[in-house]
């Protein structure tokens, strides 16, 4: 187990490094030098050159990368070209928003998805087909479209939730929850559909296992076979599916944040890319990767822990 964890940690580190290099190269391929971006249109070439010189833009790429990496491990991701604020500080403010969004959506889609999937597998027949059709529809509907519809239904027609905006938890926990409701719901729809499919397939596979017959042969009540034994067996692939889904939901937050005007990481990606703010893009890509990789690592270890075979080794 210790070896396994070490291996995974190294993999995670490698992943982050690969992305760091990738982000660095992409940022350097962006049109416009930092000087041109930060001074805006109409700046003189001399002024632009001066800024570039100050930022070390003309140094060899390798030197620049290691300088950035050295700063990054100390928690300094540079300053924004647009407003001169610290990228690290900005992202630290944004992370809780996206984390709440992605975590909420993951939990909600897990609950809904497992519920739907188990019901479909257990009930079979018409119920199964109905859920299958419903889930198929949800998969096909883009989240941004669903989000707008939710706004229309819950904010315009019935003013249950605020249409846009984010209230920090410290300001008002209740308003915070209300402001998260629609974005979380929007993101969770697609996630729930995927997890429902995964759950249904895993449950059906579990029920094909021979030990289910043994359980029936020893007069185990049906509910116990389904919800203790089969679900336990299916829990491994289901949790693995949820882990994968988290990556998707984290990415989906770009859209949800845009749609609901949430000051999260996704919004930062969108604006920094549009404004060619190199340090910000680089920072947010790396931070997003660290978060996703870390959450995945935890969920993967959880899956391993669920499996008696791997737990023992």
């Amino acid at each position: 187990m210790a070896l396994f964890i070490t291996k995974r940690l190294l993999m995670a580190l490698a992943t982050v490094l690969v992305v760091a290099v990738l982000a660095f190269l992409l940022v350097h391929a962006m049109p416009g030098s930092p000087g041109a971006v930060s001074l805006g249109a109409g700046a003189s070439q001399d002024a632009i050159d001066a800024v570039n010189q100050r930022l070390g833009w003309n140094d060899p790429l390798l030197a620049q990368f290691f300088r950035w990496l050295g700063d990054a491990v100390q928690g300094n991701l540079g300053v924004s070209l647009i407003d001169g604020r610290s990228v690290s500080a900005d992202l630290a403010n944004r992370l809780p928003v996206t984390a709440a969004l992605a975590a909420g959506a993951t939990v909600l889609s897990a609950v809904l998805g497992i519920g739907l999937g188990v019901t479909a597998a257990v009930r079979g027949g018409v119920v199964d087909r109905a859920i299958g059709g419903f889930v198929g529809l949800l998969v096909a509907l883009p989240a941004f479209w669903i989000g707008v519809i939710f706004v229309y239904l819950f904010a315009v027609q019935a003013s249950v939730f605020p249409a846009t905006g984010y209230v920090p938890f410290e300001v008002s926990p209740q308003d915070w929850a209300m402001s998260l409701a629609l974005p979380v719901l929007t993101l969770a729809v697609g996630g729930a559909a995927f997890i429902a499919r995964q759950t249904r397939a895993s449950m059906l596979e579990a029920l094909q296992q021979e030990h289910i017959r043994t359980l029936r042969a020893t007069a185990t009540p049906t509910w116990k076979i389904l919800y203790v034994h089969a679900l336990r067996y299916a829990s491994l692939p289901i949790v693995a599916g949820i882990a994968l889904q988290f990556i998707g939901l984290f990415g989906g937050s770009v859209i949800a944040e845009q749609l609901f005007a949430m000051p999260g990481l996704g919004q930062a990606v969108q604006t920094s890319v549009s404004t060619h703010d190199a340090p910000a893009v680089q920072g947010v890509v790396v931070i997003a990767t660290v978060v996703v990789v870390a959450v995945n690592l935890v969920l993967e270890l959880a899956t391993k822990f669920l499996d008696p075979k791997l737990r023992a080794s």
Partner: protein
Amino acid sequence: MIPSVAPAPADQAVPATAVQPKSGAKAAMTRFGSHRLFTSPGGVAGLVWLAALMAASLTAPLWLPFKTEDQDFTAVLSGPTAAHWLGTDELGRDILSRTFAAAAGTLGTSMITVIVGVGLGTILAMVAAAGGDRTDAIISRATEIMMSLPGTVIILAVIGAVGTNIPVVMAILGVLISAGIFRVILGQAKSLQSQLYVDAAKVDGVSPLGISIRHVLPGLTNTIVVQCALIFAVGMLIQAGLAFIGFGPPIPEPSWGGMIQGASQHVYDAPWLMVPTGAVLALTVLAANAVGNALGKAPNTTASHLPSAAARRQRMKSVKAAVGATASAPIPSQVVSAKGLLSVRNLSVGVDHGVRLVTDISFDVEPGTVLGLVGESGCGKTMTALSLLGLLPSGVSVAGGQILWNGTNLAASTDKDMEGIRGREIALISQEPMRALDPMFTVGYQLTAAIRRLRKVGKSEARKEAFSLLEKVGIVDAQRILKTYPHQISGGMAQRVAIALALSGRPRLLVADEPTTALDVTVQAEILSLLRALVKDTGMSVVMVTHDLGVVADICDQVAVMYAGQVVENGKTAAVLDNPRHPYTLALLAADPHTNAAEDMPERLATISGQVPQPKDWPTGCRFAARCQFAGSACTVPIPLLPSGASDGLVRCVKADELAVEGLEWVATEVPTHRLLEIVEKDLA
């Protein structure tokens, strides 16, 4: 939303094990299933929609009522009108025209993702499958890293670098997606690669590349097409998502995501706009998914051991209908009062609305005796055995006859009634002890739970009982075994545990389905002697399903030889084995199981050329005729089961008497070449 780039949706919808057919030979046969596409209404509808949309979009300039940039200021944000069928947007542009004009670009650029993603994924999978463990490990590791990336964020960073150059962005998206495709395809590519004919091709000097392209790729066709359809849908969604957040084609060019974005700005004053823009995108994604699903639906060969609620209701109905006719048949009087007597009368088992797997079987098992059901696989032994507990797999049910247990007809019992019988009166042990135990729970948990349930005792008493049961089945360190998980013990040990589990309800009848087949020879003997001792101690009776005449000779009092769903000969074990009357029994004996008892089925019975016919191919005459060395013209009519003359035995052969008189012997034949190949394969593996 931008769907997760990392996982391919098909991977999530179907677990890998379900995608890969269990037997390798079958995988090779899974070619492109176009018939599956065309017999699925959803698939056909999907194809039609995609084709129509493409055609409509490409010909758009010819028929569209408006140009995409035409602004009609008299009708801004209008709903559907005669002039604007789908309404207009905030600049008075015709929604219908813009939607269809945008289609070709969307579909076309999504194809880029499909080609790059599926192409790269397939190539990687084929290289990994052909290149050996090291290559495989490297590629797998790399794709794992790719799958754990926040794809959406990276795509946006790419847009930062290359701008909203949609084709390039979609190609890079394809690269990111290829990791998921690789994962889906790898297993199947490997199984194809390792197949016999591929090995044969290798010997013939075809280059590895040749093998991959000529033999592996065709086998992957169906999976590849399924992935193409699903990734096509993903590509469209992601592209629309990007356009929605402002990274679409340059304004004023229409795009679906951009149009939804525009519509979302007017959700307060013109909510209608959301409908046409969203519907076309959703329908197109649905269409692509429908095509993929229609092709990807692998016929599920493994039946559920616990049918769904709907399937159980269905089965109850069909059993009532089938058995209802025979239920009123008088129950033989000697059966009514006998305790612990199993009497099977004219039992038929069949696939629901399909072929019969077992026809008209009758046998009795007296208390304290062992009956052997013997025959090759495919003869219906296991189905017969499972029907005794009402545990037939989904889709298979009793189609007629009676299973009389203490005078009650189990064939007509509800599942609820059977729950009172299972474990308490009739118990089951099966072939693969490892698979028969739940891998997720300890031996102790499984045993105590069964004891508490079946004996209605408390927790501590159940624990004590579990311990003594394990000792009873010959486990020395029972205390330790109770704490282990099934994977931590050996096969023989697991079978002992399974037997202990079966004994936990003090059953009167034990149904044992090939209980020793999966075990080592020495362990086989131990398990058999354990069973013999249990019969003696507890007075229970046993129905022993086996293909091994050695096992029959060892433990059975009575034997019923089964062939193709029928009993062909039965009687006292000694009488049948010493003086076989049916050619099939002769052949089984000639195949001489005693000398190589540890080996597998086909090899042992290799001296009987040919195979048990499929149920749908059973002739009306003698079902053994195709393989029988004594077959003649008299064998083409239905053959009754008649007294064989040897004590109370019965035999189903027109020539039984003749053979007995002439004392003919079964002539061992050459092992057919294709069989030989199989055997060699198995030995090498």
